[in-house]
């Protein structure tokens, strides 16, 4: 699967895409979902949560383990993808459609990579 060129990526394997200047949707990358395997539960954040760039946003459970998902930006959670509550496997099926949370009022961002730079990070880890 190719990483969309209009998305941005962080080294901890989350993606974000700008909905507008001050609002992003966040999810996990194809590389991340492949590494975790079948997801069985997404412990979604709550609307109103304040996020800190580089700190845990929420966690997801695969059959084998639990993994933290890190917020790529500091801001406020203004929407969550409630469909993932009953269908965590959507992340495995379409990681770049299955957004986890929308974060607005952004005050800080992690180092953002474009698709090519992110793929280089993945290649190093493989």
């Amino acid at each position: 699967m190719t990483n969309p060129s209009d998305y941005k990526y962080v080294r901890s394997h989350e993606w974000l895409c700008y909905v507008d200047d001050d609002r992003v949707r966040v999810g996990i990358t194809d590389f991340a979902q492949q590494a975790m395997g079948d997801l069985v539960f997404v412990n979604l954040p709550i609307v109103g949560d304040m996020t800190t760039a580089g700190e845990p946003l929420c966690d997801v459970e695969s059959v084998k383990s639990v993994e933290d998902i890190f917020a790529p930006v500091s801001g406020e959670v203004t929407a969550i993808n409630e469909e993932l509550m009953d269908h965590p496997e959507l992340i495995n099926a379409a990681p770049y459609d299955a957004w986890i949370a929308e974060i607005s009022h952004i005050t800080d961002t992690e180092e953002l990579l474009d698709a090519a730079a992110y793929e280089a990070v993945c290649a190093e880890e493989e």
Partner: protein
Amino acid sequence: MERKTPLYDCHVALGGKIVPFAGYLLPVQYPAGVIAEHMAVRTKCGLFDVSHMGEVVYEGPDALANINKILTNDYTKMDIGRVRYSLMCYENGGVVDDLLVYKMRDDKYLIVVNAGNHDKDVEWMKEHLFGDVSFTDISDDVAQIALQGPASDTIIAKLTQDIPQKYYSFIDNVSIGGINALLSQTGYTGSKGYEIYVAAADAPAMWQNLLDAGQDEGLIPCGLGARDTLRLEAAMPLYGHEMDETVSPFEAGLGFAVKLDKDFIGRDALLAAGEPKRQRVGLKVLGRGIVREHQDVYYQGELIGHSTSGTHCPYLGGAYAMALIAANSVKNGDIVEVDVRGRRIEAEIVPLPFYKRA
């Protein structure tokens, strides 16, 4: 440095995701994924490399006396060709390991031990040898393949006619697709199945024969991930989780394999301990989330114990866990709370096993 099993190249060729486990490099899953592998075993069939398991042999006039002294179960009355589970205990009643004993002859027993406990088991067994017996560790010479699932009967019948008909029985020196093996009707999944012990050098050919024979039956290779979700769903205990050196067999709910009316190492301590102070129970998670191991369990606000294993069970379609809790603190149907990383989620006390084949 992790070792490779004789089937390592097969796993890589099949796209297995290799991880270190108990000193071996083994596939945690194949491209199908843990859920598909788990479902294959429940509905069709799955093939596992369990060559990491250790095998030792007691042989000689005092073989029976030795195993009866070092193991909690009683092997006095046992037919050749049968398999019997046991614990091996320390003097204090804590568990060294749990294992399977295969009676090969009146004076020869094959014992299968956990990979992670192999070294300490062998040391413990050697320390306690007595009389006229030889003890041999054949772990490196033997590969073990598990064929598990309702289609296992059909698949194995394509390769041999010598099939053990009873659960926990085996036949030695069976020709399976032309390869000599020990075939036993055993497994660690809760589904019908077989385990095949074969010379290490013959393992890749046996693996391929089984995959070929199962091609039309939906057989797929399965990894450690599915092995763990299957055993949890069937509520089978795992050393290091449901019991260890600090947990007695009775607390772990394994008293059926402890015969106090004979002499064995640990018996005095187990008798002195009296009624178990803790018990193993099943939890069906009601809230959103997955209970894993080492999470605190509360009943009516009071800490009563901790979870020992837990995961999402694909066939039952929910999260289940086992827990070690204060004896008689809850009954089936009671609702407890489990602390999952700071969040309390509800779970119901349910009977074990969670999954039992029809």
